[in-house]
């Protein structure tokens, strides 16, 4: 009799997971992170500030600093995305999000001194743990690392990896070298050894090498997808997926529909110029298929929704797409409206939760 009662209790308290949001922004102020710094680093921050120019200095977000107007917490000392209570109310509770993966971009700059960069990223992670992951059991974190200093980045991964609530390692989509460079492989190896994917999030120090600096945020923002195409080509051509067979990468906030065209061009070039990349034994499309995931926001919106389905099929992305809102940014994709109806229930369910559960190893039921 007692046995049956236990089962009844479990049924009542478990909820089937239906929605995983794979790109949610918590944003720390410098004052918040200063609490986690050593005295010398805090003094440096107070008296000299940081070295990396902020992209918002040269591409101002055209309206409301790039944030949802209603996301301002209205609490002393807080900014958009800094208050867990606001995020819980506007995102987790509002939409019934079962898990939300935080990506804190405050550590993505690359030109700080290594000592400071290491402390700064540790501070980001401690702040995540204390203010967010401990605040609501639906929240998951990503490990911020001083990526330009790979040995320090590896140390930070080792420090944080024991906490299961960190589900990935976070890197920017622009760095001092191309992201396929062997310079960064130790970071990818460490992430893989600890069973974590590497999430590359749009941003970082974008210096527009190649076409020159555009004039507007509009170009910069659409251009995020273009930069990621170039990075994915670098990752494939550089050979990192052969070197680290278990590596899984998540391309975040860069669009998805371009994947097929990039794959065709890579495969065509691979056929044509074999001596140039003799160490790549497999077709580029196969590496992408085996190693690469994409978050959806800001998902492309063709006039004819069928075209988006074609783009997903052409690149075989059905089990590789991870739903994301990008809360609290202006271009938030609503879980209720962002994906076209034409998707069909199984594909929708895969994108909204199943793909993320499989990738991040999250339980399909949670206490609710």
């Amino acid at each position, binding site marked *: 009799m007692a046995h049956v009662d236990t089962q009844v209790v479990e049924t009542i308290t478990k909820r089937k997971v239906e929605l995983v949001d794979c790109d949610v922004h918590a944003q720390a102020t410098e004052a918040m992170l200063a609490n986690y710094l050593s005295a010398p680093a805090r003094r440096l921050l107070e008296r000299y500030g940081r070295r990396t120019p902020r992209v918002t200095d040269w591409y101002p977000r055209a309206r409301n600093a790039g944030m949802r107007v209603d996301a301002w917490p209205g609490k002393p000392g807080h900014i958009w995305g800094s208050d867990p209570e606001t995020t819980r109310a506007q995102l987790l509770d509002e939409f019934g999000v079962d898990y939300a993966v935080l990506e804190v971009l405050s550590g993505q700059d690359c030109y700080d001194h290594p000592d400071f960069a290491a402390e700064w990223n540790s501070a980001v992670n401690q702040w995540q743990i204390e203010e967010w992951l401990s605040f609501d059991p639906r929240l998951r974190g990503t490990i911020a690392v001083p990526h330009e200093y790979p040995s320090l980045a590896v140390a930070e991964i080792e420090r944080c990896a024991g906490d299961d609530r960190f589900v990935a390692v976070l890197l920017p989509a622009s760095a001092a070298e191309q992201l396929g460079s062997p310079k960064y492989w130790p970071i990818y190896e460490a992430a893989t050894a600890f069973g974590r994917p590497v999430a590359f999030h749009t941003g970082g120090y974008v210096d527009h090498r190649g076409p020159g600096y555009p004039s507007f945020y509009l170009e910069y923002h659409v251009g995020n997808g273009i930069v990621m195409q170039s990075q994915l080509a670098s990752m494939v051509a550089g050979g990192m997926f052969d070197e680290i067979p278990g590596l899984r990468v998540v391309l975040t906030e860069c*669009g998805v529909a371009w994947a097929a065209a990039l794959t065709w061009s890579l495969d065509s070039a691979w056929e044509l110029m074999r001596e140039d990349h003799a160490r790549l034994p497999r077709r580029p499309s196969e590496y992408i298929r085996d190693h690469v995931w994409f978050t959806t926001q800001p998902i492309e919106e063709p006039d004819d929704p069928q075209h988006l389905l074609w783009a997903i099929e052409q690149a075989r992305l059905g089990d590789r797409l991870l739903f994301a809102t990008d809360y609290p940014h202006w271009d938030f994709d609503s879980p209720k409206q962002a994906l076209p109806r034409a998707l069909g229930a199984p594909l929708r369910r895969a994108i909204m939760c199943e793909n993320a559960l499989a990738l991040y190893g999250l339980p399909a039921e949670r206490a609710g």
Partner: protein
Amino acid sequence: MDAIDCDLHCAPESYEALFPYLNDYWRQYITEAGIRLNGLPHAYPRGLGGTAPSTYDALSEHVPDFAILNCLTGFETHRNAYFAAAVASAINDWLREEFLARDSRLRASLVVSPLSTDDAVSEISRVGEDPQFVQVLLPVRSDVPWGNKNHHAMFAAARERGLQVALHAWGRAGLAPTPSGFTTTYMEDYLGNQPIAQAQVLSLVSEGVFERFPELHVIMTECGFAWLAPLLWRFDKDWKGVWREVPWVKRPPSEYVREHFRFTTAPAHLPSDPVAVDQLLEMMDGSGMLVYASDYPHEHGDGLPALLERLSDAQRRELLTGTAAELYGLSA
């Protein structure tokens, strides 16, 4: 084959071939600095077709009904803006004498210094009335994106003479070949032209170039085209969100692109599944966006036949001749 070839290459074999068109100062500069033309080996390695023909005799058998000559030699002129302007003028004179004067089927891109709008405007004024020049040639890799207001006087000079503008793959020595940094393989550099071309599409539309120059067409040459539709889906979506930043962009960006851009067919990087080729063409609003190019002597694989196979006879004629004839005012 009945065709208009929108990208046929020629190049002087050496700077000495341009000496008749350069003054003493530049002849001495070239000689004393030991500057040599290398035939852009980074862009066109021996393994993929190598250097372009340098004489009419070597080129003539590759000319179909009409051909537009693209000479990329100016892409090698380093960072000296005075030198770039002198070489551009010399190349245009060389093109006229060596090729255009000998064959009425030939047209050419007018080359200009990519480093100075003033110099580009002067050169367009100097030779742009010659009806055998049909467009201004710019490297897709620029110091500043081509839509930037600093370049608008050049577009104005081109349009006054009925010239279009071609952005051709490669260019500008010293820049990283991708938007994400320096590369380690030719494959990345080669494909790097395509993301850069996308950035140029964004620039030209966002800066209102086509509102200011409603008759201007931009021919994206050797930059691929399979990337176009997904770019426009995102461009339109973002424009709906932040159009206030660019109020001179009055319509969805995709409308400007469909009216004002055309893309050459080499390279054509296509899916192996023919159904996906049909989908690709439908997504990019049809094969009317494309114009034929051989890109001789450069090799890009066998995308073009796979593309032509999926077209009706009428579409094929349009791609091979009709669209380009209209664009450049050519008639059989």
